[in-house]
């Protein structure tokens, strides 16, 4: 954006700027429009009210209940789907996750083996270096 100049400015930006300029010239701007005292007071009141609402027991209880219900239904549907896939002898998400878990374990073991091999190489290098170093008097 640092390269933006008047000639590269999009119509969109020019339009917004013109709108802002017109709003600045509006006599009631400092009282009514955004940034104005009236707007600020209204926003503060609305903020306080919403903060109270989202902390209130009634709101949280009903929100919690509806979320829990939605999740329970979804879990139930997924469970049924798993059963259907199993009856059709098709792999389900649970099967894939189990397979993924096994691959993860295999990956961990391979990485541990790689690490041990690296350490063994380092030890061998050190031993080799020690055996080829001429004895000092």
């Amino acid at each position, binding site marked *: *954006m*640092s*390269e*933006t100049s008047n000639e*590269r*400015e*999009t*119509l*969109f*930006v020019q339009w*917004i*700027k013109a*709108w*802002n300029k017109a709003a600045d010239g509006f006599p009631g701007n400092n009282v009514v429009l*955004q*940034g104005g005292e009236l707007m600020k007071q209204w*926003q503060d009141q*609305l*903020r306080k009210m*919403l903060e109270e609402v*989202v*902390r209130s027991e009634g709101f*949280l*209880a009903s*929100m*919690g209940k509806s*979320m*829990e219900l*939605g*999740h*329970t239904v*979804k*879990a139930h549907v*997924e469970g049924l789907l798993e059963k259907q896939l199993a009856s059709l002898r098709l792999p389900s*998400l649970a099967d*894939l*996750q189990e397979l*993924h*878990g096994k691959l*993860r374990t295999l*990956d*961990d073991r391979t*990485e541990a083996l790689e690490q041990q091999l690296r350490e063994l190489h380092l030890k061998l290098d050190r031993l080799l270096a020690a055996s080829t170093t001429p004895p000092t008097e």
Partner: protein
Amino acid sequence: MDETRPHLLPRTTELLPLWLRTLTGDVPGPAALVRPWLGGPTVPLAATPHTVAYTKDALRLLRYTPAVPRYATPILFVYSLINRYKILDFLPGRSLIEFLVEQGFVVYCIDWGTPTRADQDLTWDDYLHRYLDRCVQVVLAETGSPHLTLYGYCMGGTMALSYAALHPAPVGNFVAQAVPVDFANDGILTRWTERQFFNADALVDAEGNVPIALMESAFRYMDPIGTQQKWLDFFKKIGDPAFVETFLAMEEWAGDNIPFPGEVYRQYLRDCYQTNAFCRGEMQVGGRRVELRQITCPVLTVIADRDNIAPPASSEPLPRLVASPDTATLRFATGHVGLTASSRARREYWPQIVAWLGPRSSPLPGATTPA
């Protein structure tokens, strides 16, 4: 479209895919919709030069090497699982990682990647011992340093604290930036996650991972007016290119979230928010108790006064909970993200963090440390 004035209107090829995404319900953040209308180049997030030191599954360990190294003790950033690490390397000139690299620190940062449904059964124990511990070992092996500085941010700080409590030996220093510790005092999030209202088990059982939309709507509910007001402010300041760029970059980061791994979320909610077991030293990870008093290294707590995700009251107790004789707290008059991305951060906040960290990091032989 008038080909001689290519920047006047966004190209249909740019907007059409975005509109199609809104039709399918995969709604991009407002920043992605507004960006094509503004024209001009985009400054990419996370632009500090780096290489990948290690990968495992979706995780990448990123390495940032200074041009003039001054410290032998490397820094390892542990970021939250809620969104991406890129806020730590926000924009050129506004990047915490870039700043630390300029000071001569070798910096590593964990990019957790995007968890899929196949990762939903990964636990807190997996994240500490399959991932974080491996990253610590890689950093120590690469740098040859016996210790490192663990730099935890937000929920990543909570994870890093539990790692440091279980494995104190390699941790030379700990920086806890905007890290919730006492979850009984975590403000609106503590209220929302009370067991009587919120059933985390039902959520994880149904969804696997916590969907992005749910996390994002929770953050929007934290400040519903501010979410709308910031766009009005944006259009008021549309003639200020620097403001526009920073605003859109922030919106792009904030809208680029990842699903929260299900089993980690289940334990996080239960042991942190709902029972506060983490703070009381009763959280169990891999069959071991996480006791913060096992941490004896120097600890710096960085607090944002206007933080509503990790409110000051939730971070303040950390120095009292660890057994370290060397603790300090820095408080700044900003918000949660302001610690890492505000224009004041580079001028005022980060130099104070480096002033604490520098003397506690081993200097490289022959290196000159800044006064």
